[in-house]
């Protein structure tokens, strides 16, 4: 397993869930993401644990694009990944936000 943390500036405030909310499932080629309120309203935080080694730079690029394109201020994302492709990562994160905004 490889893990890392990332904190990025956020364009707009996100809607933090009352309790931690979990989306997705840890299975081959997939991931789960736990969304919680983070400490700083103008930042978003990521913690990633992944089975795929040597992809930290790709993760950072994917997460930076995600943070730049969505309302994620004040949110904290914890990810358990079992080898999801960047496309699946982006989609799961977008779906998680959509579910939060709908609820």
């Amino acid at each position, binding site marked *: *397993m490889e893990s890392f943390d990332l904190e990025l500036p956020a364009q707009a405030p996100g809607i933090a869930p009352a309790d931690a909310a*979990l989306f997705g499932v840890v299975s081959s080629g*997939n991931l*789960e993401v*736990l969304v919680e309120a983070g400490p700083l309203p103008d930042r978003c935080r990521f913690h990633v*644990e992944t089975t795929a080694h040597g992809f930290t730079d790709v993760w950072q690029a994917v997460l930076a694009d995600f943070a730049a394109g969505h309302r994620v201020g004040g949110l904290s994302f914890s990810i*358990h990944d079992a080898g999801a492709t960047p496309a699946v990562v982006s989609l799961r994160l977008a779906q998680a936000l959509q579910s939060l905004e709908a609820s």
Partner: protein
Amino acid sequence: MTRPRSYREATARRRVAGLLDAGTFTEWVGPGARATSPHLAALGAPVSFDDGVVVGEGRLAGERVVVIAQEGLFNGGAVGEVHGAKIRGAFERACAEPPRAVVFCIDSGGVRLHEANAGLLAISEIMRAQFAAQSAGIPVWALVGGACGAFGGMGIVARLCDAVVMSEEGRLGLSGPEVIETVKGVEEFDARDRALVWRVTGGKIRRTLGEATHLVEDDLTAFREAVAALLSSRQGPVPFTLETLQAAQAGLEGRAARDAAVRDGQVLWDRLGLDDAALMETAQFNRRLQELS
């Protein structure tokens, strides 16, 4: 027209959401608690925030129920130490604050191999806690319609339940088909012959044998309606007495004497005049089965 939401395709969380009245679910030891498996972490294997099982309480058709839902996609729904402790805890909580029923969405191949002994212990703890709940008058109903079915220790747990609601796609058994093939050879059981696997372990044959008490479509709403019907029937747990045990034993002995040589559910269907059972729609199958009883 709204299309049925497949129970089989739904995650454990979606199953819980689809079964319960909207907005009524309260999760216990939710993902924010980060009760993850120390054994998986020690092995460098990925962990999950809920260790592959969702437990909590909510309302179904207005009645309070405790819900347990295993996530078949995470390690095949296998039972590890934390996973097992959450299930045991849910039953104990049920004993402390009795609900109308415990609804147990089983989707599991059995013990998590990574945590062998802890997993085995967890299964026996689950059974003990389940008996305690049933003794306290709380019925426990299994729903089996996920891709992993109910096998190994969880196959036994399913058979201890007071009702077993299955879809045709669900499977129930002790040793999984692949295990039987590996141990006994392909002549004994060809695990790649999926139609055979389902004729031996699938929902229809389990319903035929009476091990499943209900057969429903692979549709989340159909599972919910089956549970709602059980709730409205006001049934308690199946009485657990010497007489009921002896009756069950006699039934099994009769079946063993009659069917020990049967290697394929089709033989039983042929005998019952249900030779096209495998291709029938669920409603038609239920109708035909009822006509026979």
